[in-house]
Each structure stands twice: as structure tokens, then as C-alpha cells.
């Protein structure tokens, strides 16, 4: 790919942004991120007293979204003991909303061509060391066969660069291809049941096209909420330079009827406390305008990438200690949301922060284009957006999670039976979704153990399942337990995809 855009690329770039699909959501011509107001709140809420913090904790425990002043208070806590208390509360909230399950998924990168030139990104247009490639539908089918048939994933996050060759029509084709794959496994069959997408901001028409092919969650990270920093990192004249086109893409998705949207910020670009405030304002604006908040929030930290010196130079790198605080404060601020921790982080960090409120994580992760079916094992800088911190297999991660007391879930039931949009919001806020989480975790974990687990992991997993079944028997109505037992036995006999 050339550093200079071709005429076709330039024409495409000009056609993407639709100003009227930004302005309709703004108030008095302004977006909902007021940088001065955020700083003012962070300044005003220093040294919060214990009573105030207890009141905020109580509100979070009632699964209510916090006010910006309240989140600012939490971000300003200095006492290490109170932070420990917050970590414990974050864990309790996660248990209340989602129980002890961790959903797993894998990323599938379909292309690394990109018209943008973001200073921190390995895939930026001017980074000539990257090998550029867009997968064909046949290559995507092969990738999916490995993911669903050999590793056992049921849920993907499918990732694309922003480029005319990976536009909405291509994305729709890839999603259809992924959903069509069905692979025979040891005792049943493997299939991707939910394909979430990490893609560029799009128009309502394009998002409607993606909704109609049945995408799962629409995930777009704002990268940084700080206007000036955003401007510096996304050079003028590039598509991504338009802050508000990106900021309102989830609004457009909800308007298009994609009723699960996911937020995120890339930590390390600007002050971490500011970014957490930005995420909160974003969630609140979605709630205000649509009654639906983010399905998940992600909080990736900058990781090294090929020929990308910005990453070493940034002064906003987030320490491990602050990373834990970020996770806890997001968990308390938007208590109903799913929270994603990825394999960017090394295993020791994942072990430490999963208990603070994480609901989803990836494993057996490869982010090179075509990497699953190529079966290459080492990380290759020139075909990856960044370098991963944890390349352990799904089997290893599942075993470790089980030893930590977490049941791995491959559940994709919610979005296939109408637990989406404001309905899922209600179920999450009332703690009722946790019951579905538990039941579907048991069934999907059983499927995975039967089809893919190593002997060692199967042993640990089956012991865990026994405990989970016992808990369900004691907690839930008899008819629910009986239905679970029936489904469990049917899965043992080779049936797949049974869910509550």
C-alpha cells in the first residue's frame, strides 16, 4: 500500500462522512464532551470524605450509572485502603450483574489496509514496514474453521481497517461467510454464533446493512476523548480526524437498530482520569438519547507496534496500579456494562485484574492477518497492529480461570432470543441477567469441555461444573433446574446450541 492515497481512495474518503448524521445528536451545536467541565469536576472533587464515597458505592451496588461528580470523586481517592475497598466492591458488582462467568472470544483480523494515519497505530497508512493484506472470503472461511472447529470459539470480534476495500459491503459478506461455517467436532459441531465487529464509524445506511446480516455488537473506540489530543494524533485531512463523526457513531448504530454498542478508550494517549470521565459521559449520553447504554466498555493500554515510536514517547503511559483503578472506577461508574480485558495484557496482569470486574476476555489470540489458518506461532511485528502480552491457548486460560473460581462461558444466547437493547438493560440492572449467565455458562462450558478440552482441563472443568450444578439446584426453581438437567444430558449426547 502506498503512503499517498490513490484517486479511488480519496474519492471514497470524501464520500464517507455525513454531517447531518452528526449534528442531529448534538445540543446547541456542541458535543457532550466538554473538556473544561471534565477538568473542573476532577479539580472540584478532590479529597472526597468517607461518607461521600460510601454513598457512591451504595449507588453503584444498586446498579445505577454514576453522575460525573461521583466518578470524579472515585478517581481522586488517595487512601490505599479505600482503593482496596473499591476493588472488592467492583468484584461484588460484577458478581451481582453477571455472576462468576467470564465470556471468551477471539479477534479475527480481516484486513490491515487503512486510509488513516494515526500516530500510535501500527496499521497507519504511512507505516511502510507493515505487509498489507485483505482476506478473501475463502481465507475468512479457513480462519473461521480453525477458530470454531479446532479451538472451539463461538464468539468473535471481527476487525477491519478503514479502507474502501473493507467497506460495509465487504464486511457484510465476511459476516455471512463466518456465520455459514459449520465444522464437525469430536462430539458435536462447531460454529460461530455471534460475530461482533470492531470497525470504523459508519453512516446509518451502512449500519443498517450490517444490522440486517446479524452482526453482534458494534464496537468503536474513541481512542481519546480529549479534543486537542485527538486532533494532534489524527492528522488533518484524514477520515479519522473528524472527532464528532467518531463520537456519534454509536448513536447512529442505535438509530439503525443495532442495539448492542461498545465503547472504549486507548489508555496512554492522554490523562487516564480524563479518559474514564469521557467514557462515563459517553455512556450517559447514549442512555439519555436512547435509553440504552454500552453493552461493553474496553480500556486497552498502548502496546508496542512496529515502527511506531510514538508509543515509547508518550508521557501518559498507564502504570499497572493505575490500570487496576481504571477498571474498578469504570465498574462502579457504569455498573451494568460488560468489561473487556484483552490479550494485550500479560498473564500476570490478567490474573490480577480479572477479579476486579472483568466480564469478557480473549484467548488463543492471534492478530496477524490470516494467522489462525497459517498456523504461525511467533508474533510477527510486520503483520500485527501491536504486540500481544498473552499468547496462551484457550485451554490454558480456561483451566486457570476455573482454578480461580470462574466458569468460562461461550454464551451467545441473549442476542438470539431478544435479550438486547433496553430489554437487556432492564435485566442487567435488576440482576436477573446473572441467572441466564449462569445457566448458559454451564451449558456452553459443557459443550466446550466435551469437544475441545485437554484431559487436564476437562478434569478441572468437570469438577467446576459439579459445583455450579449444585449451586443452581439450591438457588433456582425446580422446573428451571430440571430443564437444565435435560439440556445437559442432551449436550452429553452430542446436541449443540441449547440455551435459556
Amino acid at each position, binding site marked *: 500500500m502506498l503512503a499517498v492515497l490513490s484517486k479511488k481512495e480519496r474519492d471514497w474518503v470524501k464520500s464517507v462522512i455525513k454531517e447531518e448524521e452528526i449534528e442531529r445528536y448534538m445540543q446547541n451545536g456542541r458535543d457532550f464532551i466538554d473538556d473544561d467541565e471534565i477538568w473542573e469536576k476532577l479539580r472540584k472533587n478532590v479529597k472526597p470524605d468517607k461518607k461521600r464515597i460510601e454513598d457512591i458505592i451504595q449507588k453503584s451496588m444498586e446498579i445505577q450509572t454514576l453522575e460525573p461528580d461521583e466518578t470524579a470523586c472515585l478517581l481522586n481517592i488517595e487512601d490505599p485502603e479505600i482503593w482496596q475497598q473499591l476493588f472488592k466492591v467492583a468484584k461484588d458488582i460484577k458478581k451481582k450483574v453477571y455472576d462468576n462467568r467470564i465470556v471468551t472470544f477471539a479477534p479475527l483480523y480481516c484486513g490491515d489496509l487503512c486510509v488513516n494515519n494515526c500516530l500510535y497505530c501500527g496499521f497507519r497508512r504511512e507505516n511502510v514496514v507493515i505487509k498489507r493484506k485483505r482476506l478473501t472470503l475463502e481465507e475468512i472461511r479457513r480462519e473461521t474453521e480453525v477458530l470454531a472447529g479446532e479451538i472451539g470459539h463461538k464468539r468473535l470480534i471481527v476487525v477491519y481497517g478503514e479502507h474502501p476495500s473493507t467497506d460495509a459491503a465487504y464486511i457484510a459478506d465476511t459476516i455471512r461467510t463466518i456465520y455459514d461455517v459449520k465444522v464437525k467436532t469430536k462430539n458435536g459441531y462447531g460454529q460461530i454464533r455471534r460475530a461482533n465487529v470492531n470497525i470504523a464509524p459508519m453512516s446509518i445506511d451502512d449500519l443498517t446493512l450490517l444490522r*440486517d446480516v446479524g452482526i453482534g455488537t458494534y464496537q468503536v473506540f474513541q481512542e481519546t476523548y480529549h479534543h486537542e489530543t485527538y486532533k494532534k494524533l489524527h492528522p488533518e485531512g484524514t477520515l479519522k480526524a473528524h472527532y464528532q463523526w467518531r463520537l456519534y457513531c454509536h448513536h447512529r448504530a442505535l438509530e439503525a*437498530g443495532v442495539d448492542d454498542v461498545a465503547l472504549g478508550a486507548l489508555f496512554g494517549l492522554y490523562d487516564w482520569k480524563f479518559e474514564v470521565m469521557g467514557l462515563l459521559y459517553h455512556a450517559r449520553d447514549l442512555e439519555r438519547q436512547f435509553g440504552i447504554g454500552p453493552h461493553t466498555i474496553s480500556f486497552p493500554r498502548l502496546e508496542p507496534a512496529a515502527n511506531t515510536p510514538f508509543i515509547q514517547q508518550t508521557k501518559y503511559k498507564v502504570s499497572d496500579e493505575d490500570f487496576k483503578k481504571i477498571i474498578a472506577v469504570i465498574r462502579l461508574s457504569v455498573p451494568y456494562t460488560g468489561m473487556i480485558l484483552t490479550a494485550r495484557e500479560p498473564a500476570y496482569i490478567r490474573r490480577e485484574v480479572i477479579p476486579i470486574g472483568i466480564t469478557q476476555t480473549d484467548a488463543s489470540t492471534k492478530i496477524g492477518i490470516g494467522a489462525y489458518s497459517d498456523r504461525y506461532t511467533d508474533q510477527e511485528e510486520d503483520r500485527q497492529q501491536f504486540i500481544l502480552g498473552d499468547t496462551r491457548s484457550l485451554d490454558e486460560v480456561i483451566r486457570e480461570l476455573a482454578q480461580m473460581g470462574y466458569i468460562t462461558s461461550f454464551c451467545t444466547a441473549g442476542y438470539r*432470543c*431478544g435479550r438486547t437493547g433496553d*430489554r437487556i438493560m432492564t435485566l442487567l440492572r*435488576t440482576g436477573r441477567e446473572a441467572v441466564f449467565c449462569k445457566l448458559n455458562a454451564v451449558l456452553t462450558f459443557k459443550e466446550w469441555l466435551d469437544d475441545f478440552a485437554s484431559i487436564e482441563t476437562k478434569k478441572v472443568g468437570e469438577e467446576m461444573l459439579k459445583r455450579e450444578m449444585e449451586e443452581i439446584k439450591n438457588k433456582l426453581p425446580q422446573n428451571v433446574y430440571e430443564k437444565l438437567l435435560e439440556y445437559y444430558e442432551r449436550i452429553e449426547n452430542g446436541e449443540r446450541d441449547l440455551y*435459556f
Partner: protein
Amino acid sequence: MKSSLNITKESKMAKETFIFELKEAFNIIADEIKREYNAHIWLIEVLGKRYSYIAGCKDDSFLPPEFIYISEKFAVASSDWGKLPIEKKEELFSFLNKYVNKT
């Protein structure tokens, strides 16, 4: 002669109006059914693998839902079909069939 852009806009608006009216009507029916029979029903739009919530009860019992399709695009889900008398179920689907097929 209308331009294709206008036709697209008109059909989009017609679809929005249809969904809005369907939601309103379904919410009233779902409330009534919940009140009278303690049965939770909800309406979904079928979008490939995605079954998106449109209207109706937001909570339900914890049993697996069963779907009754009104058309290729719409279905009603419930874990409580057994609680509904047959005639009520027929009345519900007769109304929804007419409503969806009329549009």
C-alpha cells in the same frame, strides 16, 4: 416522477412508522397478557442470527424461550406459552398476522 432517493426515504419512513405503531400495539397486548395470565411475551425482529428486542415484557421466567413466527422478519417469544389459553393465543396471532401482513 419520483427519484429513487425519495422512494428510499419514503419507504424508510413508512418502516419506521410501522415499527412504532407495532411497538405501541404490542406493548398494550403484552401488558394485558402479563396481568391476566402472568405470562411474559416479547416481540423480536429477526436479523440473521440476531433476534432484536422490539417490544413487550422486559423480564421473564428463567426457562428457554420458544418462538412463534408471524413472518420471516418478526416473531413472538415467550417461556410461558403454556399459561395462555388457546383462544387467547389465537386471538393474539390473528391480530398480529393481520397487522404485519397488512403493511
